């Protein structure tokens, strides 16, 4: 599939540890500083060093929504890069490669750069990536001074190698300039004005969202790919008067966060799949004892240790249903880097107001990518505070878990006179004391569950139900969640341009599901495609199960497009799945139409046939 106008996909591949990611990251930043919109994706092996790594960045004049499919430009650091990537390139792709990498001279355009030799000449063997960075700078006609400034800023913690790297950068630039003076086929016209943008990763977006929401306690255990969020909070939280603890395990993480929240703090923990498995018992405690808690889960491919550095959406069921008993919670699905910021803020509001655990379901691809983003601005609704008892309530017969219409009951914390209560993991009465009588248990279950229903109204007020775009009321739909939204957006854009009517919906909250919006969406559909990055199609199954009535009544067909390869969807994959769905529906329609035509035909002949029978006088054997 050709890239839409004015975008270029640059893929950089090489061995881990030879500066491939650094090269990709710096190139992305320099391109962004030159006024281009960028959207990057990285995939790396689980090893500390070694193993192939890949950094893909898509550059555009206008907003870019995915990292793109096939590469227009491949930077091959080593032979393996060519071997692994050459089948995934556009026609006439430009191959910028180290001179010793053998690139067959067929449908591609080769741009050899003796990067290793130049680096050796400079007596700086490690500077190969900077030579290639310089060459890339020339090819895209980026400003060498801008590049050098950025390198200085980004590499300030490595003063011993800075000058050498800068020299390598310059030599790469001048070598490419002298050797390839003609215009580079994929260079974009740089905009005259650089619009105000920040360069943000999903991981940082969540950390900053937490700070914006007034988070003042974090406890976590290192786990790929959630660690960058933790590290950002380690750096910033103390400056905001908060406390950050790296704990001994995930059970400690969630229980310490619960303890801090019990004491009145706005508490957060972040983890990935295996950690969430370990935290599910704690999640139940927060739900049972009605203690606010935000849990960020940066999904990676499982099961078990799985593919620790690769992306997936396989934790949906664990997030929705994980743990024993019925433990109500909220599950939010951020669907872009910027949305990671807002959803984290909303997560704190929901947790604090509804005294419940809230899971923010992010993933590796979204957390580790960088994207140019406008400044996020103010959230639709500022962080909400906890519901606390009035002085009258405290002076009277304070019931921490009082039964109310909304399910919400005011919460105190240590230090508040008259507010003493027991937060119980056992089933408890309105005071918090253990009570296992049958009536009380069911009533308490209802109280806790009701809070989720109560929240629907506020979620609607916040415009936090779903995103819906495309052709309103179109017969074909795409319904997904989370980080696949960018690819689906591109698909609907292309289809619209081709006159194919498709509508898409992405829920903001997976628990509660925005039922009204979804039922309305389904009401005009003939068929929907549910793309997701997991093996069993968890979301599709959930939709099928939850909306079976509506689907059945209207005979809406569900087409699942599942992918579990550790990498995001290509736009092409969803595009093709959409066309296949429509084609399948056409065949079905033809078949149904054929049947109807036959019935019609038969009915037409009815008169004739009965007439014949009478004329014959009839046979009565």
């Amino acid at each position, binding site marked *: 599939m050709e890239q839409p106008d004015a975008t270029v996909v640059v893929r950089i591949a090489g061995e881990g540890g030879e500066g491939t990611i650094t090269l990709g990251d710096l190139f992305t930043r320099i391109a*962004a*500083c030159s006024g281009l919109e960028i959207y990057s994706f990285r995939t790396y092996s689980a090893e500390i060093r070694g193993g192939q790594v890949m950094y893909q960045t898509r550059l555009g004049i206008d907003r870019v929504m995915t990292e793109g499919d096939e590469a227009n430009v491949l930077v091959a650091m080593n032979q393996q890069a060519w071997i692994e990537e050459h089948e995934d390139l556009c026609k006439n792709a430009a191959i910028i490669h180290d001179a010793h990498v053998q690139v067959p001279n067929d449908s591609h355009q080769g741009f050899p750069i003796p990067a290793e030799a130049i680096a050796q000449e400079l007596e700086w063997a490690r500077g190969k990536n900077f030579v290639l960075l310089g060459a890339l700078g020339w090819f895209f006609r980026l400003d060498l001074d801008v590049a050098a400034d950025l390198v200085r800023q980004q590499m300030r913690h490595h003063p011993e190698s800075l000058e050498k790297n800068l020299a390598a950068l310059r030599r790469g630039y001048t070598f490419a300039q002298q050797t390839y003076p003609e215009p580079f086929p994929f260079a974009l016209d740089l905009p005259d004005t*650089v619009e*105000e*943008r*920040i*360069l*943000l990763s999903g991981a*940082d977006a969540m950390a*900053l969202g937490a*700070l*914006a929401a007034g988070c003042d*306690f974090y406890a976590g255990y290192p786990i790929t790919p959630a660690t960058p969020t933790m590290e950002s909070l380690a*750096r*910033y939280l*103390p*400056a905001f*008067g908060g*406390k950050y*603890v790296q*704990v*001994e*395990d995930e*059970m*400690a*993480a969630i*229980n*310490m*966060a*619960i*303890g*801090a*929240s*019990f*004491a*009145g*703090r706005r*508490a957060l923990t972040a983890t990935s799949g295996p950690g969430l498995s370990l935290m599910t*018992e*704690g999640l139940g*405690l927060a739900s049972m*004892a009605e203690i606010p808690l935000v849990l960020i889960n940066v999904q990676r491919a499982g099961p078990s240790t799985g593919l620790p550095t690769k992306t997936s959406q396989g934790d949906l069921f664990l997030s929705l249903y994980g743990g024993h008993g019925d433990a109500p919670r909220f599950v939010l699905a951020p669907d872009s880097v910027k949305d990671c910021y807002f959803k984290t803020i909303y997560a704190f509001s929901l947790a604090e107001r509804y005294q419940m655990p809230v899971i923010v379901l992010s993933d590796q691809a979204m957390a580790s990518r960088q994207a140019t983003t406008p*400044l*996020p601005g103010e959230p639709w609704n500022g962080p909400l505070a906890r519901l606390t008892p009035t002085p009258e309530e405290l002076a009277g017969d304070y019931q921490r878990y009082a039964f109310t219409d909304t399910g919400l009951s005011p919460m105190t*914390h*240590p*230090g*508040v*006179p008259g*507010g*003493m*209560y*027991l*937060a*119980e*993991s056992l089933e408890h009465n309105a*005071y*918090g*004391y*253990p009570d296992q009588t049958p009536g009380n248990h069911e009533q308490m279950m209802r109280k806790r569950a009701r809070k989720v229903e109560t929240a629907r109204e506020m979620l609607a007020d916040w415009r936090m139900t779903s995103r819906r775009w495309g052709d309103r009321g179109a017969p074909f739909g795409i319904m997904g969640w989370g980080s696949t939204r960018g690819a689906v957006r591109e698909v609907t854009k292309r289809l619209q341009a081709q006159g194919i009517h498709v509508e898409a919906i992405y829920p903001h909250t997976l628990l509660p599901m925005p039922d009204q919006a979804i039922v309305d969406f389904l009401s005009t559909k003939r068929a929907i495609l549910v793309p997701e990055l997991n093996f069993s199609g968890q979301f599709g199954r959930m939709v099928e199960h939850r909306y079976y009535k509506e689907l059945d009544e209207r005979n809406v067909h569900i087409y699942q497009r599942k992918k579990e390869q550790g990498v995001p969807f290509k736009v092409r994959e969803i595009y093709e799945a959409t066309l296949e769905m429509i084609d399948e529906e056409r065949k079905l329609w033809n078949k149904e139409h054929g049947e109807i035509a036959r019935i019609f035909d038969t009915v037409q002949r009815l008169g004739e046939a009965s007439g014949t029978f009478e004329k014959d006088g009839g046979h009565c054997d």
Partner: protein
Amino acid sequence: MTKPKANDYRGDVKPIWCPGCGDHAVLTAVMRALAQLELPREKIAVASGIGCSSRFPAFLKTYGIHGIHGRVLPLATGIKLGSPETTVIAVGGDGDGFSIGGGHIPHAARRNVDLTYIVMDNSIYGMTKGQPSPTSPEGVVSRASPYGTQERPLNPLLMALSYDVSFIARCFSGKVREMTEIFVQALQHPGFSLIQVLSPCVTFYNTYGHYNEVTQPLPEGHDPGDRLSAIQLAMNTETQYLGIFYRDEDRPTYNQRFEAVQALAPETTLDAIFESLKR
């Protein structure tokens, strides 16, 4: 304001423990210690895990949280970090603390978070009706160990000493007055204190007689600043010494460390961070 009495701290819920259970004595000693220190009830939080002894918080009129099995130390640490002015007491049994939750003790010790951890050690799983625990002596026969246990018992004090817990003591439920005095000192200790209370289970593993025989006060003149001597005394399993084995009051508490960290972090605002992310 009048001086509080021990009973002022008693909750509305009657303890569920068997008559004669050692934990009744611990509850009494805790209430007496709180009264002696004249701590306001709203400035106390008691956290627990799971087990007979972990039902403790419900029997006090303070803030309380009855958490999940084995996680009382992280839970209590969170409370103390979240509310430094609150006196935090963590309680639980030997199964909760030394088996499922044993991994948290070294880290509570490393942090030296200012809380008092009371382990009611009955050397048996009482709530689940009599299975062997990490401190059950070798060979104990129960329904869950019909041929006798095949593991050696843990030495909790030796473990705490090797983890370098900053306040380590042992009490016996048969000696409430001494226990109260040790609780008072532990509550005043600036840092993490661990107290093993020999607290017999009269129903499944009655050790009152045994402990009456083998316990005695620490030798006079034992210097609680002397860790090596404390280790030697803890290694003696024939005689179970009672008293404060070890105490180091000179270490910063975890909350003090955070004050230092907050002072180190360069001042910033959200706007400033966004500014630094601009291209």
